[in-house]
């Protein structure tokens, strides 16, 4: 295998895992924009997405096109319940307390998942059967296209949602100034509930598409949350498309490091990038410094 095709292989691997980071990062941004909370239970939504899908399609033998929407609905409901029972009652607490609550929730979610599924990793069959495709000497699994396609669809849909629909515009308004938004007749609490539901929904989709490639177990959440968070900060916290590009950058650099240099240091790459960004351009690659000055986190 030539060096070129090796690198191409790593880039595709990076794009695949980067898509997941992108979706987690997007989830961070949606909640952050509505509440300025950093939801550290974001990775657990991905974990639930993967594991519930396994339960529905492998154990209950539901076909893909029924299992997929059911899983997404279930995880969205988990996100909404989380907001109702943990974030909503503490609406007067400090931001730090709320972030700690999301940490407690992530521990609780992991506990529930381990109670139901145990400690073993689970896998799903790929969405479409067939032999891998060769591009420039790199071997690409069909599931990779599913992952990339889904990410693209998610990006397009969320962009449309936030720019073209009334609810989406209302949510954006809350992120700029909740007070002004509520004066305009926007129900801010509802928007916060919606932001948690939406970001759980994105997490579920990410979990479903990645499980056939990288397996899923109850303890996968925290590392995904950390990487997704890096993606979001790299792109500029709160900047929608920033998280997507940030996710791809983190994913590709990580997979190149693992392949060409030291595999053990793979997990450190994202974090080294994070520290550099914080030192030299804290508003992120695509965030504006003016906006970051008025934000609370």
């Amino acid at each position, binding site marked *: 295998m030539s060096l070129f095709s090796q690198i191409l292989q790593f880039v595709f691997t990076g794009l695949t895992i980067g898509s997941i980071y992108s979706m987690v990062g997007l989830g961070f941004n949606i909640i952050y924009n509505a509440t300025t909370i950093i939801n550290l239970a974001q990775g657990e939504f991905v974990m639930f997405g993967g594991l519930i899908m396994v339960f529905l399609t492998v154990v209950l033998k539901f076909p893909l096109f029924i299992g997929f929407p059911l899983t997404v609905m279930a995880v969205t409901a988990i996100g909404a319940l989380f907001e109702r029972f*943990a974030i909503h*009652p503490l609406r007067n607490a400090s931001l730090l307390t709320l972030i700690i609550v999301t940490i*407690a929730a992530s521990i*609780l979610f992991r506990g529930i998942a381990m109670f139901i599924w145990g400690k073993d990793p689970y896998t799903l069959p790929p969405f479409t059967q067939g032999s891998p495709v060769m591009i420039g000497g790199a071997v690409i699994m069909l599931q990779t296209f599913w992952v990339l396609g889904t990410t693209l669809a998610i990006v397009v849909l969320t962009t449309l949602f936030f720019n073209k629909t009334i609810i989406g515009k209302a949510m954006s308004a809350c992120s700029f100034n909740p007070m002004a938004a509520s004066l305009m007749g926007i129900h801010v609490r509802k928007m916060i509930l919606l932001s948690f539901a939406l970001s759980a929904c994105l997490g579920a989709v990410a979990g479903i598409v990645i499980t056939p490639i990288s397996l899923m177990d109850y303890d996968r959440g925290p590392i995904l949350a*950390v990487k997704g968070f890096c993606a979001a900060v790299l792109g500029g916290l709160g900047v929608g498309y920033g998280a997507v590009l940030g996710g791809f950058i983190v994913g590709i650099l990580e997979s190149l490091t693992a392949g060409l240099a030291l595999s*053990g240091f793979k*997990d450190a790459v994202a974090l080294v990038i994070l*520290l550099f960004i*914080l030192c030299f351009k804290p508003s992120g690659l695509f965030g504006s410094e003016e906006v970051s000055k008025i934000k609370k986190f």
Partner: protein
Amino acid sequence: MGKENLRAVFILTICLGVFPFFIRSDYYLSIMIFIGINAIIVMGLSLLMGYAGQISLGHAAFFGIGAYCSGVLTVKLGLSIVTAFFCGIFLSIVMALAIAIPTLKLKGHYLAVATLGFGEIIYVIFNELLEITGGPSGLSGIPPIHFFGYSFKGGWRYFYLVWTVAILLLIFSLNIIHSRVGRALRAVHGSEVAAQAMGVNVSQFKIQVFVLSALYASVAGTLYAHFVTFISPSTFSLFVSILLLMMVVIGGGGSIWGALLGAGILTILPESLRAFRDFDILVYGVILMAILLFMPEGIFKGLTLSATWMRKKW
């Protein structure tokens, strides 16, 4: 540090002083030693959170730097325990400055983000530098602490050592809070702009507190390494950083006494949940969530409130 605090420190010292006379079991003594070690770190974090309004998501890294410096330098290089201890502190301070100077100049919670990254990087380094740290399988054979031929081996001797350090740091922390620096810090926590207008150098104070909290963690790391005599990276993971932060919040973010309480509760809790075997994480999650939902200000505040309520009632 105020009369009430002085009295409380006095009572705590006496209670701890007589503890080994009544409880002889090595198991309970070692739990108390772990509480002491955690309490040292949590006091530092509590100063950072309660008085500078910042959180650290990577304090286990400083804990680890202290422990690994002590471990590696005494085992591999044969340096004396005291030298290794000061190397750990020096390294922690340098690292803390390197993180704090760029991030604490900025407004907002960039420190939390940076420490999260830093903690994970240090964790990866502990795992990957096989020749130096022993990698995932850890480093063993760390010698116990001895001063002038007196060895701190055996449960109760180490118990006194750890708690002496903890109480000295407690007194030091209480003094800081009630000094000019402490007032400046509280002003920063209340309103940065107002503090700045009063001539408080906000970012400099924040950096100082962060470095101090890193130093506390490094001291705790050394105490940990020489007590357990074996260290491995899993003791210094992100989960531990989060657990330490939890201790601050559960105890009550704004007070050093709350920090002690939080360290005590969250060190004992996993031990008492052993009976649940694999489900301990579920029970643990439920308890944390319940405390946060019903006492968002922390247990210390919750108890004080219910005490005043009871006093009014009767």
